[in-house]
C-alpha cells in the first residue's frame, strides 16, 4: 500500500465518521465542530489530488468563516437537547430508510456512470488545481460565468446589508 492510499483511506474514514457524528450529535455545537473536521478531511482529499488552492480555500471559506458564523448563531440561540423538538420513533425509522435508499441509488449511479467509469483520479500528475493554472482557466475559458458569479455575490452582499440595516 502506498502512502497516498493510506492517506486516502484514513481521510475517507475520517470524513465519513465525522459526517455521521454531525448527524448523531445531540448538541448542535458538537455538530458544527464535527462538520469542521469533515471539511478538513475533504481538504486533505483535495491535497491528495494536488489541488492545493481548492484545499486551502475550502478551509478558509468553510472552516474559517462560514462555520464560525454557524457557531455564532448556535451559541447565541443557546440550542440544546431540552428545547430541541423531539421527533417520533417512526419519523426516525422513515428517515433512515429513505436516506439509505438514496445512498444506494447514488452509489450505483456513480459506479455505473459512463462518464466516470474510465476516469482515474490523478493523484500525482494533475496540476490544474494549482493556483496559476486555475487562475488562467478562470480568466480565459470561464470568464463570463466567473463575472456572473461575482455579480451574484455583490447582489447577495447588498441584500444582506439591506436586511441587516435598522430602519
Amino acid at each position, binding site marked *: 500500500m502506498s502512502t497516498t492510499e493510506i492517506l486516502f483511506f484514513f481521510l475517507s474514514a475520517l470524513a465519513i465518521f465525522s459526517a455521521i457524528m454531525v448527524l448523531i450529535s445531540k448538541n448542535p*455545537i458538537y455538530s458544527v*465542530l464535527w462538520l469542521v473536521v469533515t471539511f478538513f478531511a475533504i481538504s486533505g482529499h483535495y491535497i491528495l489530488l494536488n489541488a492545493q488552492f481548492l484545499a*486551502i480555500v475550502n478551509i*478558509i471559506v468553510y*472552516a*474559517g468563516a462560514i462555520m*464560525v458564523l454557524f457557531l455564532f448563531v448556535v*451559541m447565541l440561540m443557546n440550542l440544546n437537547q431540552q428545547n430541541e423538538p423531539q421527533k417520533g420513533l417512526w419519523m426516525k425509522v422513515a428517515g433512515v430508510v429513505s436516506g439509505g435508499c438514496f445512498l444506494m441509488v447514488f452509489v450505483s449511479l456513480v459506479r455505473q456512470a459512463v462518464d466516470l467509469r474510465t476516469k482515474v483520479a490523478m493523484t500525482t500528475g494533475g496540476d490544474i488545481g*494549482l493556483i496559476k493554472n486555475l487562475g488562467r482557466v478562470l480568466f480565459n475559458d470561464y470568464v463570463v460565468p466567473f463575472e456572473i458569479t461575482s455579480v451574484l455575490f455583490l447582489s447577495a452582499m447588498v441584500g444582506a446589508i439591506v436586511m441587516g440595516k435598522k430602519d
Partner: protein
Amino acid sequence: MTLLSLDMLLVLEKLILIIIIVFASLGIALYTTFAERKVAAILQDRPGPERAGPFGLFQPLADGLKLIMKEEIIPSSSNKALFILGPGLAMTAALMTCAVIPWGSTVHLFGREIDLQIADINIGILYVFGVVSLGVYGIMIGGWASNNKFSLMAALRGASQAISYELAMGIALIALLMTTNTLSLREIVNQQMAPGHLWNIAYQPLGFLLFFICAMAECNRTPFDLPEAENELNFGYHQEYSSMKLGFYLFSEYINMIMSSAIMASLYFGGFDIPFFDEKILPQNMAALVGVGALLIKIVIFIFIFMWIRWTIPRFRYDQLMNLGWKSLIPLALANMLATGAWILYHG
C-alpha cells in the same frame, strides 16, 4: 516488503526541523513574556522583575512553574470536553503557522541540502490565512464552554474582531501579491534578496501599515484587546481558566505575536535578507546561519514595537474598533489595491 515508500531521511530531517522550530518558538515566547514586563517597566519608569536570577532572567521560569503548580479547576457547569479543547486549539493554531515561514536559506549538512523551512508550498501565504482563521475557534470554544456570560461576550467580541480585521488584512495582502506574482513565502523572500530589488515595504508602505494594524488586532494586542477588557468583562474569554490551560491561552498570544512578526518580516522586510550585504560572499552554511540571525533580529524589533504600542496607547472602545476596521481600514486597503493594480497595468 516495503510498506511505505518514503524518503525516511527527508522525514527525519523535517521532524528534527519541526521539533527545533516549535521548541525555539516556545522558548522565545517564554522570554517574550519577560521582555513584555521589562519593556512595561522601562516605559513606566520602574525596575520591573529583577529578583529571580541575574537581571531577573529566571522570572519566566518561575512564572511557568507557578502556572503549572496551580490547582486545575474545571467549572462544574462547563462543557468539559470543549473546555479542555479550547486552549489546545488556540495553541495548535498559533504553532501551525510556523510550517511555511522560511527561517533561513539552505544549509549543507551530511551531504544533504536542507531548506530551513518545514514546507515550501506554493500557496504558502494562503495557508497562513487558513490557520489564522482557525485561531478564532480556540477563543470561541473556550469562551462558550466556560458557561459564563462574560466569557461568552468576550468570545463573541474576539471572533467578530478577528473576522473584521481578517478582511482588511487579506485585501492589503492582495496588493502585495499583485507585485510579487507568487504566494510562496520563500520565493517572496528570494525576490527581495535579488540585487536591484528593494524590500517590499518600499513598494507597499500603506499595505504594510494596514497589515501591521490588522496583525495587531488578530493577536488581540492592546489597543485591540477588547476580548480581555478587564473593566468591562472581568477577565475576558479565559476567565474561568486556571493553571496551565490559562497558561496556554496567554502563551498562544505570544506565539501569535512571534509568528505574525516573522510573517511581516518575510513579506515586507526581506525575511532572512541582510540589508546592504551580499550573502553570496559567505560560505553557504555561514550565510544561512547569519540569515536566521537577521530574521530573528527583525522579529525581535517587531515584538518590541508591539509592546511599545501596548504600553503607550489605551484600549479602543468597541464601536471605535469596528468603525476603524470597517470604515477606515477596508476602504484604505481597497484603494491601495486599486492603486497597485493601476500602477502594474501602466508601468508593469
